């Protein structure tokens, strides 16, 4: 079941491959025959009207749901049905549409939770608090501080995460996800609720993530200015199907996409199969 997507004669398999995935809840189809691929270091956008299945796709990628049918390969390994923490361990991290920070922990501790899965010291070492434990805690503290100051959150390191302004909460979620050292970062509507200045900052932040951390990004976003401005490739989802994919310019001119967004003609949208 090899994917028909064009490869640039590169021996490297793509970072993420989704092959013919379906997700059904009883009689309702959330995703129908979705296929997509993301290469290492790529910045890919995922757009679509409300209810198109963007978050459902995120959820099958990250293991919150298991796809009813189909195959997901992350770095060549099948991940369908794996629990979320193991998928994260393979190098996929995400943020959430409705911010999910750890409310009782301060900003620094929120970032620190991302290091738990990779701790060298176990339970007994933690209770004993030996030298190796203290060294590791120190390393984590430093790395967390570095990440926070890189994203301009160091001034708030000891604040409660709930007390942060909205834009900072979104940024903290991104920092927390990045702290797990992902190869692929999934951002679920990071610009939601941000003002124009914050959106501009977000755009440069996402580009920086890519250049400096070498992380591929899959970005779900409603704000076309953000998506069109920074993504190299786009996938358009509508009613659980991939309606179109291509460069921002191609997508902008695609009549099916326009129809889906403007709701002009349902017949086109519904019959729209995957367009390469």
């Amino acid at each position, binding site marked *: 079941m090899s994917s028909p997507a064009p490869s640039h004669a590169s021996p490297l398999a793509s970072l993420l491959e989704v092959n013919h995935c379906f997700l059904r809840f009883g009689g309702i189809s959330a995703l129908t025959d979705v296929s997509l691929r993301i290469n290492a270091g790529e910045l890919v956008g995922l757009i679509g009207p409300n209810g198109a299945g963007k978050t459902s796709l995120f959820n099958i990628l990250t293991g919150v749901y298991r796809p009813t049918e189909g195959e997901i390969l992350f770095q060549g390994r099948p991940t369908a049905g794996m629990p979320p923490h193991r998928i994260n361990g393979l190098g996929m991290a995400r943020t*959430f549409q409705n911010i999910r920070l750890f409310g009782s922990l301060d900003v620094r501790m929120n970032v620190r*939770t991302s290091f738990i899965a990779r701790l060298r010291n176990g339970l007994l070492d933690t209770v004993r608090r030996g030298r190796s434990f*203290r060294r590791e805690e120190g390393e984590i503290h430093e790395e967390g501080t570095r990440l926070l100051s890189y994203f301009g959150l160091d001034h708030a390191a000891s604040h409660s995460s709930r007390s942060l302004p909205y834009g900072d909460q979104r940024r903290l979620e991104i920092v*927390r996800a990045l702290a797990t050292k992902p190869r692929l970062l999934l951002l679920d509507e990071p610009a939601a609720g941000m003002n124009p200045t914050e959106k501009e900052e977000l755009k440069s932040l996402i580009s920086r993530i890519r250049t400096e951390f070498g992380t591929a990004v899959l970005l779900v976003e409603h704000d076309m200015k953000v998506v069109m401005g920074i993504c190299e490739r786009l996938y358009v989802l509508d009613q659980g199907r991939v309606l179109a994919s291509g460069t921002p310019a191609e997508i902008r001119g695609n009549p099916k996409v326009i129809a889906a967004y403007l709701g002009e003609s349902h017949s086109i949208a519904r019959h729209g199969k995957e367009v390469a």
Partner: protein
Amino acid sequence: MISHNSYVFRSLISLRPATARMKNPRVALAAGLGVAVVLQSCSGWIDPYSTQVILFAAINVILAVSLNLVMGETGQFSLCHAAFMAVGAYTSALLTGRVLPFLLPHSSWTGTSVASQFWFLPVLIVAGVVASLAGVIVGGPSLRLRGDYLAMVTLGFGEIIRVLLQNTDVVGGSRGMEGILPVTNLFWAVGCSALTLYTMISLVRSTYGRGFQAVRDDEIAAAAMGIDTTRFKVTAFVIGAFFAGVAGALYAHAVEFISPEGFNFLRSFEIIVMVILGGLGRPVGVAIAAVLITLLNEWLRDLSQYRMVVYALIIILFMIFRPTERLAPCLRSLRGLLPGAKKAPTAP
């Protein structure tokens, strides 16, 4: 100015001090063990009644602080803490009453003898291990459940243990076991509670320990950050059960008599009250609450039939004003005022 004041106010009342700095709590452990030794060496001057109250307070501290890891830190509602205590109590009573006398010369087998004191440590550990095995058995399958369902399973488990004990003749059935050696003394009880408190505080104030709180705050986000949520929940449950088992062993060898009724649902509930009053997720507050409730129980003995009325009333007032929850941060900020103490950084 106002915002600064309000920050101070909030940090006194509810906000965890931003400076949950990773100080080594070993100093506190050494102090706790020191107190245990001093109390034990002064035990001749402490009257038996006060001794017993201190023993109960220390045992309740162990129970409440260990349940706090499950309920307060990890956010799992467990209603069977007394059952784990029962497992520890019966295990240890069987060991000291039936097993060890066969292995050791009988003459040395009294509560205060060196041999029994020496053998009490392994007995405590075995009691804890057996109780934590019970924790694995209950927690393994049921911690995949959430909230109400977990509460129901643990409630059921508590009852199963009680009924099992009631119908097992080896442990005396519903008559219970009597004549248990009074090995528990101030050293063991206070020492174990210091050790429990140390374990819990050092566990929680570490990167590893933040995993428990992450699971409590948001399981989905925790899993997405690579945290094995089920494993963290089971770990909390098993550690909690271990210390409950130790507390049970201490209890059995302090009161010299145990029966299944002593470990019923109400006992579990009493521990839950301590955890809630102490402020879920605040080990020091929970320990203070455990001591206060033990003392309250004693003070109210004289009221005979009005006892439960007053008890309930005080609990309600406690719930409204939550004094213990405020006490721990106050102590911490007092410590900051001491000369030589490094001043905690405050928010801008």
